[in-house]
């Protein structure tokens, strides 16, 4: 560490440091911990655990789709339950929790130069309520009638009728209760992330010096705090419809020839509420991925991110735009055509900031000193996957093109590419990148490369053929196609092919999990800054960072996060806490 002269252009501390909570026992240190880093690991482990359930569910679905009629235990009802739980778990309990609760908790305090989140106790509660939400969700597998099979969008009226698995049993009740709990827990954490970024930064850390990872997580959290309320309200109302017999979403309807008590509700209202949450949710998952991948590319290409400010404004712009596009999920629900026109326009406008981001990633790579490390491989894979998924988004965003493609496998392929595979590739890249900071050891390189190539190529072999099936009109949500004549003959075995690929990719994830556990003890020693990165988390005195993160004195930030390969500097990176007098900066003035 260099000797830091405090006067070097940095204002003094505005407030005294808040005393940290110091744990006294094993329980308060590792279980009921108020340390954001421990909470992050708890969040990540829980999310990974429930994610494995979703992975197994996807295997079961692929067993049915690839080899229909072979497995007796996969009834159509069971298939719907698998599809519902797979979707809900992946979107909310895995990706949202992992990006915001996992990466957010670990990286925000370290990257902004704080000792912890601003309210560690509330932060701890956030995790335990999340865990409770997960347990309620899991319990629905063991409830009479099993989990809900309403599809991940839970559209009423079918979601609470007896024809749907779990509709008149416990499934839907547990699902909605779990969502309500998740939102309460998330709000507690989310408030912490936002306030820590806004009010808890260290000296010299301006908003425009934040690493893009923090910008992505921060914006996504703000969006989540404004979008989850709609899901909360929708869940409460559907729960009342189901339990008390109200008619918020239930029109006059008959079931098995009998008129139900419901009357006068609006199923479309649920769709509006759901997608007012649901569309921002796509970006709640995508924006942290955008941010993280920017940092991975810059670090591993040894080059400053191209157009940092544009990247920030693109993140903020995407976040704002995503609140005015929700009805593009409802083109076939029955809308006034002018609404479709409006929502198609706003949807396509999102292509502008996302294209800016893609161009900037590519321009960052342009003539960079590209190290094909595993995080970099995943980052590159993300860019191509995101472009692929984004392009099909242009198709689906147009009303006239969407109508025939709606409810086909094309849609499934699109959203898996853009918000399934792409963010998960970033999750993997981020884990390979930050694992050395969390554990002090590197993940095994050979296993990592195996994992990357199987996952990357496998994901394409799974989802590319799905586009083709969708264009031929193969519908989604069908447990079995009895009439194969809608497909050309050569495509008849495509579903079996996709299924086999899915098993192979799933197997590669087991290798990854083995690597995660094995490397804790047997990985190569990483040292404090194995990637020679500039951001503050790599400058901590201890690795893994100790309680309080930064030792006696908080770091002071003198430069942006992207001083790589600065001409005239001794090394090809200058950490953020190195004063300007020790070398020039490429930070835009």
């Amino acid at each position, binding site marked *: 560490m260099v000797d830091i002269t405090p006067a070097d252009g940095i204002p003094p501390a*505005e407030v005294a440091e808040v005393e940290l909570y110091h744990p006294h026992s094993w329980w308060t240190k590792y279980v009921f911990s108020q340390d954001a880093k421990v909470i992050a690991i708890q969040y990540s482990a829980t999310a990974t655990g429930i994610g494995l359930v979703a992975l197994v569910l996807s295997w079961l679905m692929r067993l049915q789709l690839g080899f229909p009629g072979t497995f007796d235990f996969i009834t159509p009802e069971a298939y719907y339950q698998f599809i519902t739980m797979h979707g809900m778990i992946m979107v909310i309990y895995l990706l949202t929790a992992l990006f915001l609760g996992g990466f957010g908790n670990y990286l925000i305090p370290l990257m902004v130069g704080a000792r912890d989140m601003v309210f560690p106790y509330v932060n701890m509660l956030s995790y335990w309520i999340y865990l409770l939400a997960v347990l309620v969700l899991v319990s629905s597998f063991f409830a009479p009638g099993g989990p809900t099979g309403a599809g991940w969008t839970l559209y009423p009226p079918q979601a609470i009728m007896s024809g749907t698995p779990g509709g008149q049993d416990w499934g839907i009740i547990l699902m909605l209760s779990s969502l309500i709990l998740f939102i309460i827990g998330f709000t507690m954490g989310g408030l912490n992330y936002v306030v820590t970024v806004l009010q808890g930064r260290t000296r010299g850390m301006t*908003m425009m010096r934040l690493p893009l990872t923090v910008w992505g997580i921060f914006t996504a959290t703000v969006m989540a705090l404004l979008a989850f309320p709609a899901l909360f309200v929708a869940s409460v109302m559907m729960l009342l419809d189901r339990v008390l017999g109200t008619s918020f979403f239930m029109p006059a309807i008959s079931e098995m020839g009998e008129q139900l008590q419901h009357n006068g509700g609006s199923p479309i209202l649920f769709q509006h509420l759901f997608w007012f949450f649901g569309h921002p949710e796509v970006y709640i998952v995508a924006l942290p991925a955008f941010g993280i991948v920017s940092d991975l590319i810059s670090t591993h290409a040894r080059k400053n991110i191209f157009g940092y400010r544009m990247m920030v404004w693109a993140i903020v712009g995407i976040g704002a735009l995503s609140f005015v596009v929700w009805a593009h999920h409802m083109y076939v629900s029955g809308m006034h055509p002018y609404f479709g026109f409006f929502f198609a326009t706003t949807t396509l406008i999102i292509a502008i900031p996302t294209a800016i981001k893609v161009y900037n990633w590519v321009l960052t790579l342009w003539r960079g000193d590209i190290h094909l490390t595993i995080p970099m491989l995943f980052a590159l894979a993300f860019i191509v996957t995101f472009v692929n998924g984004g392009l099909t988004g242009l198709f689906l965003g147009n009303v006239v093109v969407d109508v025939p493609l709606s409810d086909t496998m094309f849609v499934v392929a699109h959203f898996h590419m853009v918000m399934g595979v792409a963010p998960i590739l970033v999750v993997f890249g981020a884990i390979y990148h930050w694992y050395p900071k969390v554990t002090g050891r590197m993940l095994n390189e050979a296993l990592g490369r195996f994992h990357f190539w199987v996952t990357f190529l496998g994901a394409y072999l799974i989802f590319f053929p799905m586009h083709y099936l969708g264009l031929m009109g193969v519908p989604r949500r069908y447990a079995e196609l009895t009439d194969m004549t809608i497909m050309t003959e050569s495509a008849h075995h495509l579903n079996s092919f996709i299924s086999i690929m899915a098993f192979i990719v799933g197997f590669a994830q087991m290798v990854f999990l083995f690597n995660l556990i094995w490397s804790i003890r047997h990985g190569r020693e990483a040292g404090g800054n194995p990637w020679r990165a500039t951001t503050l988390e790599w400058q901590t005195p201890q690795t893994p960072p100790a309680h309080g993160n930064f030792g006696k004195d908080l770091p002071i930030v003198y430069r942006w996060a992207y001083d790589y390969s600065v001409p005239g500097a001794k090394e090809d990176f200058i950490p953020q806490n190195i004063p300007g007098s020790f070398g020039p900066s490429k930070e835009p003035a």
Partner: protein
Amino acid sequence: MAETLTHIGQTEPRPAGWKGIAADWSSDQRAFKNVSWGKAMMWIFLLSDTFIFGCFLLSYMTARISTRVPWPNPSEVFALRIGGSDIPLILIAIMTFVLISSSGTMAMAVNFGYRRDRRKTAILMLLTAALGATFVGMQAFEWTKLITEGVRPWGNPWGAAQFGSCFFMITGFHGTHVTIGVIFLIIVARKVWRGDYDTGRRGFFTSRTGRYENVEIMGLYWHFVDLVWVFIFAFFYLW
């Protein structure tokens, strides 16, 4: 008044208006200067909570404008028979008066809190809590009255079933907010009374010391709950 520290440690007047906001947001450490963590967190929570109540009210309005059967007339439904004549909305008027008054006592509590007047602060907070509890009590009375008249979440004698659903859901959710507020008012009042904010006594759960600002943060929540009631009053009872 508004000052900011420059990079060489001197204070200079902070630019006013939008320039000031831009200067604050492009500075280090804090985007909202002179705003504590707790206060910032409460404001952001209230923003999120606004969206919850907004969604509830929008859903109610959707149900009300799209129903094909008559909506019960609030003036008649919420009338009380006092002295032989029906007085429309009288109970709601009293409830609203009580709740708005509690905002006044809350504001006074904040004022005395910053003057370090422990006794008056605690008494005014308890008075606020009492007014809040009165409000919840009157709400319970109103619920009881409607239930005995046959209003249920799934139907009522006078018209659209959504009347009862929306009424119980929205007033119930608001009443829960008031109840939580009353509980926390009592907790904070006790801390003020005991002098926790002077002696630096640590919180039982958080093990952090509190400050008199907590009274103000509590007040933010309380005023918010009152403001929400104004909207519920306008959209549900006066419409």
